């Protein structure tokens, strides 16, 4: 195969992938009223093989997002409500004795799904949390000496309630690093909320939602997206943004190299969804505010002054010369 053909094939692939992804995105947007940005970020997380941390109050559509995503790509979805007494095996699954066969059989837990919704993850004890996080990172679960592969694609959408902190075990900063992005869904716009109220109960939009792709197409997209080109100026810009968090005056602990890698994966997907075969600095600017903030630890004095990690990223971006060529 000559290089010209390669380029041609690749361009064709990317074109098809963009079509698939835009179809999925449009599909979810039909049920997630006015939440285009959240849908986009969730899709990016899925394609970047990352996990999503949603910090928001209940009732804004976290479950809806997970279900719509799963339905659109025709895959399994499961939900775990984290409570203080939840055990690791409640998440991962257990080996049980089957009397009829006389053997031990593995009964997979809810984590063996393509999309796992973990509600109020901070309510579970550290042991359970870390079992989940390990599974997220390794994409395997080992029970009684047997290693089980998790499904692909695999994505955890974990939620944290930022209001009720009593009796919770907030994720340690080091663990938050495992999530590709942290997003807040936010209350819908007044018009959108009116639409939601009016249509709720009249028709089950979710039930009407049909799949527009399958897991195979998604995995193909995941592989194809790795071909999206990141030119050297972009790489340098991306790294400069990440490194700047380490020297910022308000930051105690900056973004790790894992953060740079995460941002790189995310911008590739963003470019692909836009139908581009190359990453532009705008991708970096758009995603830095979602990929980086939850990995930063601010100085106490900055936090007291009301500075948020998002402010820090915005400050860095406004001072970082963007490449134009």
């Amino acid at each position, binding site marked *: 195969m000559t290089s010209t053909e390669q380029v041609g094939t690749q361009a064709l692939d990317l074109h098809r992938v963009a079509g698939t992804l835009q179809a999925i995105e449009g599909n979810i947007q039909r049920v997630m009223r006015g939440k285009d940005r959240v849908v986009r970020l969730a899709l990016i997380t899925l394609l970047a093989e990352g996990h999503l941390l949603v910090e928001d109050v209940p009732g804004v559509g976290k479950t809806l997002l997970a279900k719509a995503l799963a339905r659109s790509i025709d895959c399994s979805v499961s939900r775990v409500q984290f409570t203080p007494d939840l055990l690791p095996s409640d998440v991962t699954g257990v080996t049980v004795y089957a009397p009829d066969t006389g053997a031990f059989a593995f009964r997979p837990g809810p984590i063996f799904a393509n999309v796992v919704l973990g509600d109020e993850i901070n309510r579970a004890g550290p042991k359970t949390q870390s079992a989940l996080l390990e599974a997220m990172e390794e994409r395997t679960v080992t029970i009684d000496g047997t290693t089980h592969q998790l499904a692909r694609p695999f994505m955890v959408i974990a939620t944290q309630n930022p209001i009720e902190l009593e009796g919770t075990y907030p994720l340690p900063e080091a663990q938050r690093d495992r999530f590709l992005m942290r997003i807040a869904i936010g209350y819908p716009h007044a018009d959108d909320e009116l639409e939601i109220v009016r249509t709720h109960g009249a028709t089950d939009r979710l039930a009407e939602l049909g799949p527009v792709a399958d897991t195979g197409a998604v995995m193909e997209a995941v592989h194809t997206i790795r071909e999206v*080109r990141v030119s050297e100026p972009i790489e340098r810009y991306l790294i400069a943004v990440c490194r700047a968090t380490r020297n910022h005056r308000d930051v105690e602990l900056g973004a790790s190299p894992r953060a740079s890698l995460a941002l790189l994966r995310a911008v590739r997907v963003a470019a692909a969804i836009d139908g581009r075969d190359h990453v*532009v600095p705008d991708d970096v600017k758009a995603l830095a505010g979602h990929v980086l903030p939850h990995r930063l630890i601010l100085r106490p004095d900055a936090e007291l002054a009301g500075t948020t990690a998002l402010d820090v990223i915005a400050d860095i971006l406004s001072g970082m010369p*963007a490449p*134009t*060529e």
Partner: protein
Amino acid sequence: MRRDGLLTLLLALVLLTTVPAYDRVFTDDAWRGAPLGAALLALVIAGLARRLRLPTWVALPLALGSTVLALPWLLGVHVGWREDVVGQLEVLRATFADGLVSLAAEPSPAEPLVGLVLLVTIGYGCVAVLAHEIIVRSGHAAPGLVMIAVLWTVPLAIPTSADDGWLVVVPFLAATGTLLLASVNLPREGPGAIPLPASGLALGAAAIAVAVAAPWLLPAQGQDPWLALGSSTQPRGYQPIVDITNRLGSPEEREVLRVRASQRSYLRLAGLDSFDGGTWRLGPGDGATYRPDPGALFPADQPLPPEEPAASTQLVEVDVEVLELENIYVPLPYQPVEVLGPIRDQMVWSTEGGFLATWDRAEAVGETIGIRQGSAYRVLAERPDPSFEELAAVDFPEEVLADHTQLPRDYPELGAVAEEVYTAAEADTVVEQALALQSWFVGPEGGFTYDLDVPALRGDDALTEFVLEDRVGYCEYFATAMAVMLRETGIPARVAVGFLPGERVEQADPQAEIALDEYLVTTGDAHAWVEVLFPGYGWITFEPTPRSDDSHILPRADDLAPIENEAERAEREGADALDDLEGPDADTEVPELPEQQLPEEGEDGAAADQAAAGGEDGAGANPWVVLALLLAPVVVVLLARVGQRAAVGRQLGDDPRGAVLMAQRRLYAAARRVGLERRAHETTREVIARWEAEGRIDRGRGAVAGTVQAAAFDGELDADRASAAVATLDRMAEELTGRVPRREQVLVPLRRVVAGVTRGVERLREGWRLR
């Protein structure tokens, strides 16, 4: 930024390595300070301008302008802090003119005369600034280095006797190579960079063409310039006083003439009849090119008519052998009656200024003219030798006064001083007054000191300051001052230039059949003195310069045309006092030497005469060529910018990506010009969106951002999209420029400075607050 600093440093290093090349064309290294100082200063200022993000068109004049203003100090020709900028520039202009004359007149290696050093300094300054802009700011090392290569090649192209080629080449190549290596993968865009698309090639080609042409264009030892822009038969206004000053300034004394003379006498080049306020010049002082009246010119192969009839004279015979001197004016005793020797056919005697020159001979077309090493000739002269009484009785007709007492302006202070001197000396007649003024200058009462190391006599008040305050100078100062004071008090006077008689190395000895005394004249004997016209007796020499070595000849009331110098006189007077020996030297017999004894002039005429090849006011070729050389880089840059559009068209065919990016640069450059620059953190998409939102450009232009970014960040890009994008970008640039009112555009640089200052203050305050 750090890399830019390193590049600037390396650039300075490269410039430094070009120094040995120029060492070849100078006799010593005193020239180095000014060019290197100018180059460094220019680099520092250009660097600062870059750091302040001033665009090239501001940085260039800033760096060049401040370097020009610093030049008088770098060269040591400044006229003091009292002079304003205009005065300093006037000094520069005059020095520049001197430089052009020296360039034409001085064979290489030349003494580091201030005019020549100025030319080199201008070259270094220009190249430093332009190379900085091209290499550091635009990131194009190659064209910048080619410019330096031109700077380096020019002196190497001038042939001299010694040749250590590789010693000169190796350091330059090493430094150049390092700079080239360091500049690989430079960031493509710098603030205010000159957009130089394919013009790197154009620039390089032009520079190489200049470099290749330079050897033929510049005068060199023993070779004619390849291209002579002026006709060589035209009389030239070459001003000999410049030559005298330069020779005196020569750091290393060299023998220029071997003279065998029947009596010691000044060897005169010319009498300078007009004063322009700074310098005495040949011919009428109307500033125009000097062309003697053809009626005043006489071929030297016949007996010469006197410039002024002289009643009492002494016959002087002088044989001159030129050791190291190239000149169109022939040094000879005044005033000559006959010239012997083969080269007299090329000479012409002018009764205006009384000089014998080797020009303005129709027959000399195509021939080499002028005296030079090996030239030999014999002059018979009738030296005016009147008595004091004769001169005291002279009447001065009006027309003589009208012709020879003109000054460009009144010098009332100098006139007053002269009158005081006359009164103190009780001098009533002209001859008494001239003698009184002469002794005021050389004697203790004036309090003058002879010193070569003084700033040039330039600026309106320089002469008055010299006489009234400083009282330190050399022959040109004294002669100029005395002649001006004489004219101011109504006495017809002028400045003569030439050589002192030199050191007597062999005495005439009739027994040993040595008929004439032999003298050696050196560069240190270059001299200027005063002549006063006494109608009927000719131009009489006066000597206002108090030379410390007593080698001058001082006329006195009892001997107005002495033949012994002050050292000998003091010796003789001492001896007289001891044993009252014989009278003055016996008149020397003038033996006739057959003409064949004179060294034959070479027939081939291969050696060229530098002096004849150029002139300050004349149509000499070389100054113009040098000017063209200096201007060439500027012209090339301009041409490159003009040719940019064509280059874009070509590029679009070959490299759509490059064309789009170049269009983007043009857009940003246009935006910067009208003060709407892209903020550093803005991406292409963002800045175009902002301009749209602000109404700076038409709406619906966002799509072009995608194309630009595809071009910039390795995206797929086909030629059609690219050419459409280039067109859109250029249209956007026009919209941006067109919608900003002209007066706003004018204010842009000002605003930028203010913004820069504000930003700096803010940053400073932030620093105080936080740390």
